[in-house]
Protein backbone atom coordinates (compact mmCIF):
# COMPACT_ATOMS: atom_id res chain seq x y z
CA UNK A 1 0.00 0.00 0.00
CA UNK A 2 1.34 3.39 -0.95
CA UNK A 3 2.06 5.73 1.89
CA UNK A 4 -0.26 8.69 2.11
CA UNK A 5 2.45 11.07 3.19
CA UNK A 6 6.18 11.07 2.51
CA UNK A 7 7.80 12.77 5.44
CA UNK A 8 11.35 12.87 4.15
CA UNK A 9 13.14 10.66 1.66
CA UNK A 10 16.69 11.65 0.93
CA UNK A 11 18.11 10.79 -2.48
CA UNK A 12 21.33 12.79 -2.59
CA UNK A 13 22.40 16.15 -1.28
CA UNK A 14 19.64 18.70 -1.71
CA UNK A 15 17.53 16.47 -3.88
CA UNK A 16 14.72 15.29 -1.71
CA UNK A 17 11.32 13.88 -2.28
CA UNK A 18 8.65 14.04 0.33
CA UNK A 19 6.41 16.64 1.84
CA UNK A 20 7.76 20.10 1.19
CA UNK A 21 5.25 21.72 3.49
CA UNK A 22 6.21 19.49 6.40
CA UNK A 23 9.86 20.35 5.83
CA UNK A 24 9.07 24.07 5.67
CA UNK A 25 6.99 23.76 8.84
CA UNK A 26 9.92 22.10 10.60
CA UNK A 27 12.28 24.83 9.43
CA UNK A 28 9.92 27.56 10.58
CA UNK A 29 9.45 25.82 13.92
CA UNK A 30 13.21 25.73 14.40
CA UNK A 31 13.73 29.37 13.42
CA UNK A 32 10.69 30.37 15.48
CA UNK A 33 12.32 28.73 18.51
CA UNK A 34 15.60 30.54 17.86
CA UNK A 35 13.70 33.82 17.49
CA UNK A 36 11.81 33.30 20.74
CA UNK A 37 15.00 32.43 22.63
CA UNK A 38 16.56 35.62 21.25
CA UNK A 39 13.54 37.70 22.28
CA UNK A 40 13.57 36.21 25.78
CA UNK A 41 17.30 36.90 26.03
CA UNK A 42 16.73 40.48 24.92
CA UNK A 43 14.05 41.01 27.53
CA UNK A 44 16.21 39.51 30.30
CA UNK A 45 19.29 41.51 29.26
CA UNK A 46 17.22 44.67 29.02
CA UNK A 47 15.72 44.09 32.46
CA UNK A 48 19.06 43.14 34.05
CA UNK A 49 21.33 45.75 32.44
CA UNK A 50 19.53 48.66 30.83
CA UNK A 51 16.66 49.39 33.17
CA UNK A 52 18.61 49.29 36.49
CA UNK A 53 21.40 51.55 35.16
CA UNK A 54 18.91 53.94 33.59
CA UNK A 55 16.96 54.19 36.87
CA UNK A 56 20.14 54.88 38.86
CA UNK A 57 21.05 57.72 36.47
CA UNK A 58 17.56 59.22 36.12
CA UNK A 59 15.33 58.22 39.04
CA UNK A 60 17.58 57.62 42.06
CA UNK A 61 17.72 60.55 44.47
CA UNK A 62 21.01 62.08 45.65
CA UNK A 63 21.84 61.99 49.33
CA UNK A 64 24.88 61.77 51.64
CA UNK A 65 25.96 58.74 53.60
CA UNK A 66 28.53 57.79 56.19
CA UNK A 67 31.01 55.08 55.24
CA UNK A 68 31.24 52.51 58.05
CA UNK A 69 33.17 49.60 56.61
CA UNK A 70 34.65 48.10 53.42
CA UNK A 71 35.42 44.53 52.35
CA UNK A 72 36.15 42.36 49.34
CA UNK A 73 33.11 40.20 48.57
CA UNK A 74 33.89 36.71 47.26
CA UNK A 75 31.97 34.23 45.16
CA UNK A 76 33.19 30.72 44.38
CA UNK A 77 32.50 30.18 40.69
CA UNK A 78 33.25 27.19 38.41
CA UNK A 79 36.28 28.97 36.95
CA UNK A 80 37.62 30.13 40.31
CA UNK A 81 36.86 32.75 42.93
CA UNK A 82 35.41 36.11 41.82
CA UNK A 83 35.46 39.37 43.77
CA UNK A 84 33.44 42.56 44.17
CA UNK A 85 33.70 45.70 46.25
CA UNK A 86 31.30 45.91 49.17
CA UNK A 87 30.99 49.09 51.24
CA UNK A 88 28.80 49.49 54.29
CA UNK A 89 27.03 52.83 54.37
CA UNK A 90 24.55 54.50 56.61
CA UNK A 91 22.15 57.23 55.51
CA UNK A 92 19.13 58.91 56.99
CA UNK A 93 15.81 59.66 55.31
CA UNK A 94 13.38 61.67 57.42
CA UNK A 95 13.33 59.84 60.75
CA UNK A 96 14.62 56.50 59.52
CA UNK A 97 18.26 55.39 59.29
CA UNK A 98 19.22 52.89 56.62
CA UNK A 99 22.34 50.75 56.76
CA UNK A 100 23.39 48.58 53.79
CA UNK A 101 26.34 46.96 51.98
CA UNK A 102 26.57 48.35 48.43
CA UNK A 103 28.75 49.77 45.67
CA UNK A 104 27.02 49.95 42.26
CA UNK A 105 23.62 48.79 41.05
CA UNK A 106 24.96 45.79 39.09
CA UNK A 107 26.68 44.18 42.06
CA UNK A 108 28.94 42.50 39.49
CA UNK A 109 31.89 40.31 40.44
CA UNK A 110 35.38 40.85 38.94
CA UNK A 111 37.91 38.13 38.12
CA UNK A 112 40.86 39.90 39.83
CA UNK A 113 41.13 40.75 43.54
CA UNK A 114 43.60 43.59 42.81
CA UNK A 115 41.02 45.37 40.66
CA UNK A 116 38.52 45.31 43.52
CA UNK A 117 41.09 46.41 46.10
CA UNK A 118 41.96 49.37 43.84
CA UNK A 119 38.30 50.39 43.90
CA UNK A 120 38.11 50.12 47.69
CA UNK A 121 41.25 52.26 48.08
CA UNK A 122 39.29 55.21 46.70
CA UNK A 123 37.18 55.13 49.85
CA UNK A 124 38.55 55.94 53.32
CA UNK A 125 37.10 53.95 56.20
CA UNK A 126 37.41 55.67 59.56
CA UNK A 127 35.64 53.68 62.36
CA UNK A 128 36.04 56.51 64.87
CA UNK A 129 34.92 59.40 62.75
CA UNK A 130 33.18 57.98 59.62
CA UNK A 131 33.68 60.02 56.41
CA UNK A 132 30.73 61.26 54.38
CA UNK A 133 30.25 60.35 50.72
CA UNK A 134 27.54 61.11 48.15
CA UNK A 135 25.08 58.30 47.52
CA UNK A 136 21.88 57.77 45.54
CA UNK A 137 18.88 55.87 46.82
CA UNK A 138 15.88 54.31 45.10
CA UNK A 139 12.71 56.33 45.85
CA UNK A 140 10.65 53.18 45.30
CA UNK A 141 12.72 51.24 47.84
CA UNK A 142 14.87 53.58 49.98
CA UNK A 143 16.81 50.63 51.41
CA UNK A 144 18.52 50.31 47.97
CA UNK A 145 21.35 52.79 47.49
CA UNK A 146 24.53 53.05 45.42
CA UNK A 147 27.83 54.90 45.74
CA UNK A 148 28.54 55.19 41.97
CA UNK A 149 26.39 55.99 38.96
CA UNK A 150 27.05 55.95 35.19
CA UNK A 151 26.76 53.40 32.41
CA UNK A 152 28.88 50.28 31.90
CA UNK A 153 29.20 50.38 28.13
CA UNK A 154 31.08 47.11 27.73
CA UNK A 155 28.17 45.40 29.48
CA UNK A 156 26.05 46.23 26.47
CA UNK A 157 28.09 43.71 24.45
CA UNK A 158 25.89 41.13 26.14
CA UNK A 159 23.21 42.22 23.71
CA UNK A 160 25.19 40.69 20.82
CA UNK A 161 24.10 37.17 21.81
CA UNK A 162 20.30 37.67 21.95
CA UNK A 163 20.40 40.08 19.00
CA UNK A 164 22.16 37.46 16.84
CA UNK A 165 19.53 34.91 17.85
CA UNK A 166 16.76 37.37 16.95
CA UNK A 167 18.37 38.15 13.57
CA UNK A 168 19.01 34.51 12.63
CA UNK A 169 15.62 33.33 13.86
CA UNK A 170 13.76 36.31 12.38
CA UNK A 171 15.57 35.99 9.05
CA UNK A 172 14.78 32.27 8.89
CA UNK A 173 11.15 32.94 9.78
CA UNK A 174 10.83 35.64 7.11
CA UNK A 175 12.49 33.40 4.51
CA UNK A 176 10.24 30.51 5.47
CA UNK A 177 7.16 32.74 5.38
CA UNK A 178 8.17 34.06 1.96
CA UNK A 179 8.40 30.47 0.64
CA UNK A 180 5.40 29.08 2.50
CA UNK A 181 2.80 27.72 0.09
CA UNK A 182 4.69 29.09 -2.89
CA UNK A 183 5.85 27.02 -5.82
CA UNK A 184 9.52 26.52 -6.69
CA UNK A 185 8.97 28.63 -9.83
CA UNK A 186 7.51 31.52 -7.84
CA UNK A 187 10.39 31.46 -5.37
CA UNK A 188 12.91 31.25 -8.24
CA UNK A 189 11.23 34.19 -10.01
CA UNK A 190 11.35 36.16 -6.78
CA UNK A 191 15.03 35.39 -6.10
CA UNK A 192 15.86 36.11 -9.77
CA UNK A 193 14.29 39.55 -9.47
CA UNK A 194 16.14 40.13 -6.20
CA UNK A 195 19.44 39.19 -7.90
CA UNK A 196 18.75 41.64 -10.72
CA UNK A 197 18.24 44.38 -8.13
CA UNK A 198 21.63 43.61 -6.60
CA UNK A 199 23.48 46.91 -6.58
CA UNK A 200 26.82 45.15 -6.82
CA UNK A 201 25.93 43.41 -10.10
CA UNK A 202 27.38 45.34 -13.00
CA UNK A 203 24.64 44.18 -15.34
CA UNK A 204 27.12 43.04 -17.96
CA UNK A 205 26.69 39.39 -17.13
CA UNK A 206 24.58 37.03 -15.08
CA UNK A 207 20.99 38.07 -15.48
CA UNK A 208 21.93 41.03 -17.66
CA UNK A 209 22.46 40.75 -21.38
CA UNK A 210 23.45 37.08 -21.26
CA UNK A 211 21.82 35.38 -18.28
CA UNK A 212 23.67 32.57 -16.47
CA UNK A 213 27.07 33.48 -17.89
CA UNK A 214 30.11 34.36 -15.78
CA UNK A 215 31.22 37.97 -15.27
CA UNK A 216 33.59 39.43 -17.84
CA UNK A 217 34.99 42.29 -15.76
CA UNK A 218 37.95 40.27 -14.53
CA UNK A 219 39.26 40.23 -18.09
CA UNK A 220 38.09 43.54 -19.50
CA UNK A 221 39.51 45.59 -16.61
CA UNK A 222 43.08 44.66 -17.56
CA UNK A 223 44.29 46.26 -20.82
CA UNK A 224 46.95 44.50 -22.87
CA UNK A 225 50.24 45.79 -24.25
CA UNK A 226 49.89 44.40 -27.78
CA UNK A 227 46.23 43.38 -27.99
CA UNK A 228 43.12 44.75 -26.32
CA UNK A 229 42.95 42.70 -23.11
CA UNK A 230 45.43 40.88 -20.92
CA UNK A 231 43.96 37.58 -19.72
CA UNK A 232 44.06 36.91 -15.96
CA UNK A 233 45.96 33.82 -14.89
CA UNK A 234 44.02 31.22 -12.94
CA UNK A 235 45.34 29.54 -9.82
CA UNK A 236 48.16 31.93 -9.03
CA UNK A 237 50.90 30.04 -7.14
CA UNK A 238 51.21 32.80 -4.50
CA UNK A 239 48.61 31.59 -2.01
CA UNK A 240 49.49 27.87 -2.15
CA UNK A 241 53.14 28.81 -1.61
CA UNK A 242 52.24 31.11 1.28
CA UNK A 243 50.16 28.34 2.89
CA UNK A 244 53.02 25.89 2.48
CA UNK A 245 55.49 28.39 3.94
CA UNK A 246 53.19 28.96 6.93
CA UNK A 247 52.87 25.21 7.51
CA UNK A 248 56.69 24.93 7.30
CA UNK A 249 57.24 27.68 9.86
CA UNK A 250 54.60 26.42 12.32
CA UNK A 251 55.77 22.79 12.11
CA UNK A 252 59.45 23.64 12.49
CA UNK A 253 58.92 26.13 15.33
CA UNK A 254 57.00 23.46 17.27
CA UNK A 255 59.75 20.92 16.52
CA UNK A 256 62.45 23.40 17.57
CA UNK A 257 60.74 24.08 20.92
CA UNK A 258 60.22 20.37 21.63
CA UNK A 259 63.78 19.57 20.53
CA UNK A 260 65.13 22.34 22.78
CA UNK A 261 63.30 20.90 25.79
CA UNK A 262 64.56 17.39 24.97
CA UNK A 263 68.18 18.55 24.50
CA UNK A 264 68.03 20.53 27.75
CA UNK A 265 66.91 17.39 29.55
CA UNK A 266 69.83 15.44 28.10
CA UNK A 267 72.34 18.17 29.00
CA UNK A 268 71.10 18.39 32.58
CA UNK A 269 71.48 14.65 33.01
CA UNK A 270 67.74 14.02 33.26
CA UNK A 271 66.84 12.81 29.74
CA UNK A 272 63.19 12.29 28.77
CA UNK A 273 63.49 9.51 26.23
CA UNK A 274 59.77 9.46 25.45
CA UNK A 275 59.73 13.12 24.36
CA UNK A 276 63.02 12.59 22.50
CA UNK A 277 61.51 9.70 20.53
CA UNK A 278 58.41 11.84 19.95
CA UNK A 279 60.44 14.72 18.50
CA UNK A 280 62.43 12.63 15.99
CA UNK A 281 59.59 11.81 13.52
CA UNK A 282 58.23 15.36 13.79
CA UNK A 283 61.69 16.74 13.06
CA UNK A 284 61.84 14.52 9.98
CA UNK A 285 58.42 15.74 8.83
CA UNK A 286 59.58 19.36 9.31
CA UNK A 287 62.62 18.76 7.14
CA UNK A 288 60.51 17.08 4.44
CA UNK A 289 58.16 20.09 4.47
CA UNK A 290 61.10 22.49 4.07
CA UNK A 291 62.47 20.43 1.16
CA UNK A 292 59.05 20.31 -0.50
CA UNK A 293 58.61 24.07 -0.04
CA UNK A 294 62.02 24.83 -1.57
CA UNK A 295 61.24 22.50 -4.47
CA UNK A 296 57.91 24.27 -5.09
CA UNK A 297 59.60 27.69 -4.93
CA UNK A 298 62.23 26.51 -7.42
CA UNK A 299 59.50 25.11 -9.65
CA UNK A 300 57.41 28.29 -9.59
CA UNK A 301 60.31 30.69 -10.06
CA UNK A 302 62.05 28.53 -12.64
CA UNK A 303 59.66 29.64 -15.35
CA UNK A 304 59.14 33.41 -15.63
CA UNK A 305 55.55 34.68 -15.85
CA UNK A 306 53.60 33.99 -19.03
CA UNK A 307 51.58 36.76 -20.65
CA UNK A 308 48.56 36.08 -22.85
CA UNK A 309 46.51 38.81 -24.53
CA UNK A 310 43.37 38.64 -26.65
CA UNK A 311 42.02 40.99 -29.30
CA UNK A 312 38.49 41.13 -27.89
CA UNK A 313 36.45 39.93 -24.96
CA UNK A 314 33.98 38.36 -24.28
CA UNK A 315 34.45 35.90 -27.12
CA UNK A 316 31.60 34.56 -29.23
CA UNK A 317 31.27 30.97 -30.39
CA UNK A 318 32.28 30.83 -34.04
CA UNK A 319 34.30 34.04 -33.72
CA UNK A 320 37.86 34.63 -34.92
CA UNK A 321 40.28 36.48 -32.66
CA UNK A 322 43.99 37.20 -32.25
CA UNK A 323 46.13 35.94 -29.39
CA UNK A 324 49.44 37.37 -28.22
CA UNK A 325 51.75 35.08 -26.26
CA UNK A 326 54.79 36.36 -24.42
CA UNK A 327 57.17 34.04 -22.56
CA UNK A 328 60.40 35.43 -21.08
CA UNK A 329 63.54 33.27 -20.68
CA UNK A 330 65.78 31.70 -19.80
CA UNK A 331 64.19 28.46 -21.03
CA UNK A 332 65.15 25.44 -23.10
CA UNK A 333 61.76 24.47 -24.47
CA UNK A 334 61.02 21.14 -26.08
CA UNK A 335 57.53 22.33 -27.00
CA UNK A 336 55.35 25.33 -26.21
CA UNK A 337 51.63 25.10 -26.92
CA UNK A 338 48.46 27.12 -26.36
CA UNK A 339 45.31 25.04 -25.95
CA UNK A 340 41.68 26.10 -26.04
CA UNK A 341 39.77 24.01 -23.50
CA UNK A 342 36.22 23.72 -22.24
CA UNK A 343 35.33 21.93 -19.02
CA UNK A 344 32.12 21.07 -17.26
CA UNK A 345 32.11 21.38 -13.49
CA UNK A 346 29.39 19.89 -11.29
CA UNK A 347 29.26 20.49 -7.55
CA UNK A 348 27.13 18.28 -5.36
CA UNK A 349 26.66 17.07 -1.83
CA UNK A 350 27.27 13.48 -0.94
CA UNK A 351 26.24 13.04 2.67
CA UNK A 352 27.92 15.89 4.48
CA UNK A 353 30.69 16.21 1.89
CA UNK A 354 30.70 18.83 -0.83
CA UNK A 355 32.17 17.29 -3.96
CA UNK A 356 33.23 18.69 -7.30
CA UNK A 357 33.62 16.80 -10.54
CA UNK A 358 35.23 18.23 -13.67
CA UNK A 359 35.03 16.75 -17.17
CA UNK A 360 36.81 18.22 -20.19
CA UNK A 361 34.58 18.38 -23.26
CA UNK A 362 36.76 20.35 -25.66
CA UNK A 363 40.52 20.57 -26.17
CA UNK A 364 42.08 22.09 -29.22
CA UNK A 365 45.60 23.27 -29.93
CA UNK A 366 45.67 26.82 -31.26
CA UNK A 367 49.46 27.28 -31.29
CA UNK A 368 52.50 25.03 -31.09
CA UNK A 369 56.24 25.55 -31.39
CA UNK A 370 58.82 22.77 -31.07
CA UNK A 371 62.43 23.15 -29.89
CA UNK A 372 62.77 26.69 -28.75
CA UNK A 373 65.59 28.40 -26.90
CA UNK A 374 64.70 31.57 -25.00
CA UNK A 375 67.89 33.22 -23.73
CA UNK A 376 68.20 35.03 -20.40
CA UNK A 377 66.80 38.56 -20.76
CA UNK A 378 65.07 37.67 -24.05
CA UNK A 379 61.34 37.11 -24.52
CA UNK A 380 59.60 34.82 -26.96
CA UNK A 381 56.62 36.63 -28.49
CA UNK A 382 54.12 35.45 -31.04
CA UNK A 383 50.68 36.37 -32.35
CA UNK A 384 48.36 33.61 -33.50
CA UNK A 385 44.73 33.14 -34.51
CA UNK A 386 42.11 31.89 -32.10
CA UNK A 387 39.07 30.48 -33.89
CA UNK A 388 36.26 29.35 -31.67
CA UNK A 389 34.07 26.51 -32.92
CA UNK A 390 30.51 27.63 -33.66
CA UNK A 391 28.66 24.51 -32.51
CA UNK A 392 29.79 24.54 -28.90
CA UNK A 393 28.27 25.37 -25.55
CA UNK A 394 28.88 28.88 -24.28
CA UNK A 395 30.25 29.73 -20.82
CA UNK A 396 27.63 28.93 -18.23
CA UNK A 397 27.66 29.65 -14.51
CA UNK A 398 25.11 28.64 -11.90
CA UNK A 399 25.58 27.94 -8.17
CA UNK A 400 26.14 24.19 -8.65
CA UNK A 401 26.96 23.75 -12.32
CA UNK A 402 29.38 25.42 -14.67
CA UNK A 403 30.68 25.26 -18.24
CA UNK A 404 34.08 26.94 -18.24
CA UNK A 405 36.25 28.00 -21.16
CA UNK A 406 39.94 28.73 -20.86
CA UNK A 407 43.31 28.87 -22.57
CA UNK A 408 46.20 26.75 -21.36
CA UNK A 409 49.83 27.54 -22.03
CA UNK A 410 51.70 24.26 -21.74
CA UNK A 411 55.48 24.07 -21.87
CA UNK A 412 57.63 20.96 -21.97
CA UNK A 413 61.15 21.86 -20.87
CA UNK A 414 64.55 20.33 -21.42
CA UNK A 415 65.83 18.77 -18.21
CA UNK A 416 63.26 20.47 -16.01
CA UNK A 417 59.69 19.90 -14.88
CA UNK A 418 57.01 20.87 -17.41
CA UNK A 419 54.78 23.86 -16.68
CA UNK A 420 51.19 24.74 -17.44
CA UNK A 421 49.38 28.03 -16.95
CA UNK A 422 45.64 28.53 -17.27
CA UNK A 423 43.85 31.71 -18.39
CA UNK A 424 40.11 32.29 -18.10
CA UNK A 425 37.96 33.46 -20.99
CA UNK A 426 34.21 33.92 -21.32
CA UNK A 427 32.49 32.58 -24.43
CA UNK A 428 29.04 33.82 -25.38
CA UNK A 429 26.64 31.98 -27.72
CA UNK A 430 27.26 32.32 -31.45
CA UNK A 431 25.70 35.36 -33.09
CA UNK A 432 25.84 36.94 -36.52
CA UNK A 433 28.82 39.14 -35.86
CA UNK A 434 31.64 40.43 -38.02
CA UNK A 435 35.04 38.90 -37.35
CA UNK A 436 37.59 40.98 -35.48
Amino acid sequence: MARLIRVYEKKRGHRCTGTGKLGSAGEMLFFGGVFLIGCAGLVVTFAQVVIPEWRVNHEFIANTCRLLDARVGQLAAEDGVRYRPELQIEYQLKDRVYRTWTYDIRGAYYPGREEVEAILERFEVDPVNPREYPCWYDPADPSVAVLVRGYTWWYWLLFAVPVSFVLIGGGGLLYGAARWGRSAERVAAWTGRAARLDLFQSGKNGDGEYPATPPVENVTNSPGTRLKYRLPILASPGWPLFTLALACVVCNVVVAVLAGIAVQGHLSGDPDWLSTLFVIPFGGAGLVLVAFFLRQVARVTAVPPTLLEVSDHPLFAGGRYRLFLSQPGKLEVRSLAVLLVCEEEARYREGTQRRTEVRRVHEEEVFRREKLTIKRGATFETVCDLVLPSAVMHSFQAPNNEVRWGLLVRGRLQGRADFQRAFAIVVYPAVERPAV
Partner: protein
Amino acid sequence: MTPPTVEIRFTGNGRSYRPGETLTGDYTLSGVKPAEIKALEVSVLWQTEGKGDEDMAVHFFERRPPDGDGPAAVRPGGRFSVQLPPSPLSYQGLIVKIRWCARVRIFLNRGREVVGELPFRLGDVPPAHPATP
Protein backbone atom coordinates in the same frame (compact mmCIF):
# COMPACT_ATOMS: atom_id res chain seq x y z
CA MET B 1 -14.17 10.89 -13.20
CA THR B 2 -10.89 11.81 -14.94
CA PRO B 3 -8.05 13.16 -12.81
CA PRO B 4 -7.17 16.82 -13.27
CA THR B 5 -4.58 17.34 -16.01
CA VAL B 6 -2.86 20.22 -17.75
CA GLU B 7 -1.94 20.00 -21.42
CA ILE B 8 0.50 22.47 -22.93
CA ARG B 9 1.00 23.03 -26.65
CA PHE B 10 3.44 25.31 -28.40
CA THR B 11 2.09 27.19 -31.37
CA GLY B 12 3.10 25.47 -34.58
CA ASN B 13 4.08 22.38 -32.58
CA GLY B 14 7.58 23.79 -32.45
CA ARG B 15 9.97 22.27 -29.94
CA SER B 16 13.17 24.06 -30.95
CA TYR B 17 13.69 27.79 -30.70
CA ARG B 18 16.45 30.25 -31.39
CA PRO B 19 17.60 32.79 -28.79
CA GLY B 20 15.49 35.91 -28.98
CA GLU B 21 12.65 34.08 -30.70
CA THR B 22 9.14 34.35 -29.25
CA LEU B 23 7.73 31.23 -27.66
CA THR B 24 3.96 31.13 -27.87
CA GLY B 25 1.78 28.40 -26.48
CA ASP B 26 -1.51 27.56 -24.90
CA TYR B 27 -2.69 25.28 -22.15
CA THR B 28 -5.92 23.53 -21.39
CA LEU B 29 -7.12 22.21 -18.08
CA SER B 30 -9.30 19.12 -17.96
CA GLY B 31 -10.91 17.13 -15.19
CA VAL B 32 -11.21 20.18 -13.01
CA LYS B 33 -14.08 22.57 -12.36
CA PRO B 34 -13.25 26.30 -12.49
CA ALA B 35 -14.62 26.69 -8.97
CA GLU B 36 -11.99 24.25 -7.65
CA ILE B 37 -9.08 26.36 -8.92
CA LYS B 38 -7.47 28.69 -6.39
CA ALA B 39 -4.70 29.99 -8.66
CA LEU B 40 -2.65 29.13 -11.69
CA GLU B 41 0.99 29.78 -12.48
CA VAL B 42 2.57 29.82 -15.92
CA SER B 43 6.35 29.79 -16.10
CA VAL B 44 9.10 29.33 -18.66
CA LEU B 45 12.27 28.16 -16.99
CA TRP B 46 15.55 26.31 -17.28
CA GLN B 47 16.96 23.78 -14.88
CA THR B 48 20.09 21.72 -14.75
CA GLU B 49 20.27 17.96 -14.67
CA GLY B 50 23.20 15.63 -14.31
CA LYS B 51 25.82 15.12 -11.65
CA GLY B 52 25.61 18.46 -9.84
CA ASP B 53 22.92 19.65 -7.49
CA GLU B 54 20.04 21.18 -9.39
CA ASP B 55 20.09 24.83 -10.45
CA MET B 56 16.97 26.53 -11.72
CA ALA B 57 16.03 29.98 -12.99
CA VAL B 58 12.68 31.28 -14.15
CA HIS B 59 12.71 33.41 -17.29
CA PHE B 60 8.97 34.09 -17.37
CA PHE B 61 6.49 33.83 -14.52
CA GLU B 62 2.87 34.77 -14.33
CA ARG B 63 0.43 33.99 -11.54
CA ARG B 64 -3.22 34.15 -12.46
CA PRO B 65 -5.62 34.61 -9.54
CA PRO B 66 -9.04 32.93 -9.57
CA ASP B 67 -11.17 36.04 -9.46
CA GLY B 68 -11.23 39.01 -11.79
CA ASP B 69 -12.21 39.51 -15.37
CA GLY B 70 -8.87 40.66 -16.72
CA PRO B 71 -6.63 38.72 -19.07
CA ALA B 72 -4.70 37.30 -16.13
CA ALA B 73 -7.70 35.58 -14.57
CA VAL B 74 -7.85 31.77 -14.35
CA ARG B 75 -9.78 30.11 -17.12
CA PRO B 76 -10.00 26.46 -18.26
CA GLY B 77 -7.52 27.35 -20.98
CA GLY B 78 -5.13 30.14 -21.71
CA ARG B 79 -2.24 31.40 -23.76
CA PHE B 80 1.21 32.66 -23.02
CA SER B 81 3.84 34.35 -25.09
CA VAL B 82 7.42 35.16 -24.14
CA GLN B 83 10.58 36.28 -25.89
CA LEU B 84 13.34 33.79 -25.16
CA PRO B 85 16.70 34.99 -23.79
CA PRO B 86 20.10 34.64 -25.51
CA SER B 87 21.34 32.24 -22.83
CA PRO B 88 21.64 29.69 -21.37
CA LEU B 89 21.15 27.44 -24.36
CA SER B 90 19.84 23.90 -24.03
CA TYR B 91 22.79 21.58 -23.49
CA GLN B 92 23.43 17.86 -23.22
CA GLY B 93 26.81 17.77 -21.55
CA LEU B 94 28.62 14.90 -19.90
CA ILE B 95 27.86 15.91 -16.33
CA VAL B 96 26.01 19.21 -16.87
CA LYS B 97 22.71 19.31 -18.74
CA ILE B 98 20.46 22.33 -19.24
CA ARG B 99 16.82 21.75 -19.96
CA TRP B 100 14.21 24.38 -20.85
CA CYS B 101 10.49 23.89 -20.34
CA ALA B 102 7.17 25.63 -20.05
CA ARG B 103 5.32 24.70 -16.88
CA VAL B 104 1.76 25.29 -15.77
CA ARG B 105 0.93 24.68 -12.13
CA ILE B 106 -2.66 24.73 -10.89
CA PHE B 107 -3.44 25.18 -7.23
CA LEU B 108 -6.67 23.42 -6.35
CA ASN B 109 -8.64 23.59 -3.14
CA ARG B 110 -7.59 21.38 -0.21
CA GLY B 111 -3.91 22.04 -0.99
CA ARG B 112 -3.83 19.91 -4.13
CA GLU B 113 -1.59 20.86 -7.04
CA VAL B 114 -1.47 19.72 -10.66
CA VAL B 115 1.55 20.38 -12.83
CA GLY B 116 1.85 20.20 -16.60
CA GLU B 117 5.20 20.59 -18.31
CA LEU B 118 6.43 20.68 -21.89
CA PRO B 119 10.16 20.78 -22.65
CA PHE B 120 11.68 22.61 -25.60
CA ARG B 121 15.13 23.29 -26.96
CA LEU B 122 16.73 26.72 -26.96
CA GLY B 123 19.50 26.96 -29.53
CA ASP B 124 21.13 24.07 -31.31
CA VAL B 125 24.21 23.19 -29.29
CA PRO B 126 25.16 19.59 -30.14
CA PRO B 127 25.66 17.06 -27.33
CA ALA B 128 29.09 17.12 -25.72
CA HIS B 129 31.64 14.33 -25.97
CA PRO B 130 34.75 13.68 -23.89
CA ALA B 131 37.66 15.77 -25.14
CA THR B 132 40.34 13.92 -27.06
CA PRO B 133 43.71 15.62 -26.53
